[in-house]
């Protein structure tokens, strides 16, 4: 990690020796050493177990019960219904449409973001210093904006009556975007959402990948260029292979983030996404808190987590593999 460079070099006055460690105290230390790490970890583990682990179990339990508003208000234990919720959800074509939409959005969005991110990262090494600075500053501002604020800005820009997007597009010859509503046609609406997510996601990707590019040895690239390799060949045979572990990680993270899309479509649709703008996350949320079908919502959440499990396991394995976790 390149996070702290200073500690190693900073002068630290070694603490003055207090007493010579006797044999007894050393033995005590060793015994202490065995339980200390667990004592230190206990508060974290309790909190994670209580507010992540227990809800996770509760979510699974809930998905086998039938929790409605009546049970919530009376505090009675909801009746067990076995796999009813799952049969209901899995037998519902609406659910499968939502799954398909979420998967399609994730694939499209991740591919576009990673490609643009990689392209910008490479571009940053080609431009003048001033332009590079401008690019970094621009991306930092976008990266720093809260998701919800970014979504609100996009909602304003694409507003049908006073949005600047329609105004600007009207300058194109032969088109009329007066009062054009971007969310009537779902393809256009999803185009806006995708643009927002890509726009907000590119800074992380480009800046991280650009940092990774410093690992590519200069001599290697120069030698290849002198030997007559085209820039494309250099990219394919030198740069990308070296960058591969990093690309894998940022792609995996992008998949996890985009698959859980909630804020953007939620905010752009005023907190009431129409059926065509539902993703798995908003769908489960709407079922639970919009329609008080807590059990159906839980079942959808369980399925969502199961769908994500493969990707998550891959990410964690990757983190272990690159040796950061040892």
């Amino acid at each position, binding site marked *: 990690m390149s996070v702290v460079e200073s500690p190693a070099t900073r002068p630290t006055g070694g603490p003055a020796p207090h007493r010579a460690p006797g044999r007894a105290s050393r033995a005590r230390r060793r015994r202490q050493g065995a339980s*200390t790490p667990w004592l230190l970890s206990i508060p974290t583990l309790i909190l994670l177990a209580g507010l992540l682990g227990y809800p996770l179990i509760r979510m699974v339990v809930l998905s086998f019960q039938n929790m409605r508003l009546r049970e919530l208000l009376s505090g009675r234990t909801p009746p067990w219904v076995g796999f009813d919720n799952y049969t209901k959800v899995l037998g519902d074509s609406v659910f499968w449409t939502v799954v398909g939409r979420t998967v399609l959005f994730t694939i499209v969005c991740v591919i576009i973001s990673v490609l643009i991110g990689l392209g910008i990262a490479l571009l940053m090494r080609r431009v003048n210093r001033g332009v590079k600075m401008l690019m970094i500053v621009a991306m930092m501002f976008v990266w720093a904006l809260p998701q919800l604020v970014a979504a609100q800005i996009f909602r304003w820009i694409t507003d049908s009556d006073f949005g600047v997007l329609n105004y600007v597009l009207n300058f194109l010859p032969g088109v009329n975007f007066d009062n054009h509503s971007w969310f009537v046609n779902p393809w256009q609406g999803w185009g806006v959402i995708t643009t927002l997510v890509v726009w907000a996601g590119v800074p992380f990707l480009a800046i991280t990948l650009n940092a990774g590019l410093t690992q590519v040895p200069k001599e290697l690239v120069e030698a290849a260029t002198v030997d007559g390799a085209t820039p494309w060949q250099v990219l394919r045979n030198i740069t990308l292979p070296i960058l591969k572990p990093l690309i894998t990680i940022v792609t995996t993270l992008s998949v996890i983030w985009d698959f859980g899309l909630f804020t953007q479509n939620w905010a752009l649709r005023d907190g009431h996404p129409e059926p065509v703008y539902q993703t798995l996350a908003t769908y489960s949320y709407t079922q639970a808190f919009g329609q008080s079908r807590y059990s159906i919502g839980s079942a959808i959440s369980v399925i969502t987590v199961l769908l994500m499990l493969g990707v998550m396991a891959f990410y964690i394995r990757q983190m272990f593999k690159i040796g950061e976790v040892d």
Partner: protein
Amino acid sequence: MARDEGVVTVGRSMAGTIAANTIGVIFSLFMLFPVYWVLNTAFKPADEVLALTPTFWPEHPTFANFTSAFKAPLFMQDMLNGLIVTVLAVAGALVVGFLAALAIARFSFYGRKAIILVVLAVQLVPFIALLIPLFLMLQTVSLTNSLIGVSITYLVLILPYTVWTLRGFISGIPRELDEAALIDGCTRAQVFWRIILPLTGPGLVATSVYGFIQAWNEFIIINTLNSPAKQNLMAWLLQNQTTRGTAWGPLMAGAIITSIPVVIFFLIIQRNIATGLTAGAVKG
């Protein structure tokens, strides 16, 4: 020409450089446009905001939108709530997380890998999925519609990242320092107070700022658990839009006020943010 270390300059054409610079500038303008547009809107008087021909500069710049955002119902209340909830969550996560980070970074013990696995895995669990049981749980102990309930939830939300990042910072302190101190007769506790804690200072700042951003930006949980009087500014932005029509000017001003602390904090610690997520893959 760029003269950065490691940038290859062999075999580069002038035309290519010009093209690259042009694309770079266009890209930057495209990225910045929404940011510019929110500022442009926020300083316009109401009639200019709703002009059919939008102007690219406020003709009569005004702070009216900002004052009306501050005067809007619940704005100050929600700002205060957000601050309380965020500070409680960050402080709690820092104390609790530091201990666990210390355990993972400095001790080798049976179960260490399991703890790392848990910390990494829970970062990936979509929190929205847990919202239903969480809501029901907090409901039974009467912690919904309370700042305490949300604070605890946020604490847990930022805890895994806190542990993970602090672990990295502590690992960065050479173990030899600990060992030297131990040989000189320090106890474990003294090593902690005199070596690890002071040297982790910058890491604690970076981690807490990141936690602050996370908690400050959250709105789904607080919007679900609490009524508007006990929400934060993000949720306020969301409420604001559901009233009849949208007052774009004040909304954009509110969005700017809400973003300012986060943007400033982010720009200060941006170097550290990506490292926690991709640590090890970049050997900068």
